């Protein structure tokens, strides 16, 4: 028994595929999550997010219109965001390292590479509860620290390409 009070958790599930939403919601409900909101697009998710202010987002990447990545960027940086720190677990069929980097750079906290399983869903939920990452604010980025370890030890100049480019401008 882990003792997590998942019944206190409010989760927003965003996927344009109704079946995938049903599957994720079924798993979350079995974990004991009772407060579940859902949205079938990035635009709708933004509205629901501002109305319900969830504790965790489970978000698909590829959707028509606003993608999951664009939604995360809005959550992290928009002045209208209800919570720029809300943990985002991204569901994705993308498995290439470049895609993982892209999502991480947008401010995604954790990934679930499809196929979705009970074990990975639980492990990512526990990860955002037990191992939250520090946040970073630079001229070019705001979001969870993109390094898994040792980020709090770094005190040097910005070295990321986009940051250097902005500094030069």
């Amino acid at each position, binding site marked *: *028994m882990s003792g997590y009070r998942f019944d206190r958790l409010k989760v927003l599930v965003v996927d344009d595929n109704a079946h995938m939403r049903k599957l994720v919601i079924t798993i979350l*409900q079995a*974990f004991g999550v009772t407060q579940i909101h859902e949205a079938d697009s990035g635009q709708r998710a933004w509205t629901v997010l501002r109305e319900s202010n969830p504790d*965790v987002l489970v978000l698909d990447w590829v959707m028509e219109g606003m993608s999951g990545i664009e939604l995360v960027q809005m959550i992290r940086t928009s002045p209208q965001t209800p919570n720029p720190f809300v943990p985002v677990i991204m569901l994705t069929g993308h498995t290439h390292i470049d895609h993982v980097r892209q999502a991480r750079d947008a401010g995604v906290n954790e990934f679930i590479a499809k*196929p979705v399983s009970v074990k990975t869903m639980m492990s990512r939920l526990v990860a955002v*509860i037990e191992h*939250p990452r520090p946040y*970073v604010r630079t001229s070019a980025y705001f979001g969870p620290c993109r390094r898994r370890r040792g980020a709090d030890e770094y005190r040097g100049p*910005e070295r990321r390409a986009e940051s250097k480019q902005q*500094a030069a401008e």
Partner: protein
Amino acid sequence: MARQQPIELFMPPNMLKAKVGGGLGGVDMAAMKRAEGALDTLKSEFGDWIAEDVKVLIAARARYAKTPDEASRGALMRAAHDIKGQAATFNFPLIARVAGSLSRLIGELPESQPLSLSLVDGHVNAIQVIHRQGIQDTNDKMAQTLCAELDARVEETLKPKK
């Protein structure tokens, strides 16, 4: 040399942990079992779910064949990518593999180059056959041959021309 820029690094209060507590006894095995049981109940619906995804793919293929523009190509890509992720979750790994091959073709072929409709059709037809025959075994010889052939044709198409 890079100019010194302020980097603000901070740890927000862990409101989530404060809200749900717990964690002392490791993973809640009862919750995991409940979830596995709930998924088993859903599995009877997976075949119908994939059927609907395949219909979306067929419609996206028809749209691209009629009007091969950026929007229809994007819709075809989304349909293939959705099936790639969902079919694996819904216990149709070979459909996921074929959809992955189609996603790769659409995603990696420069947008300036039109998609070969015959190669798109090869993928769509393979997905229909695997679904119709309910092939869920990754060792199925016929499906493996089909997948390998499609992989090779995608590889050939994406190979830089000399």
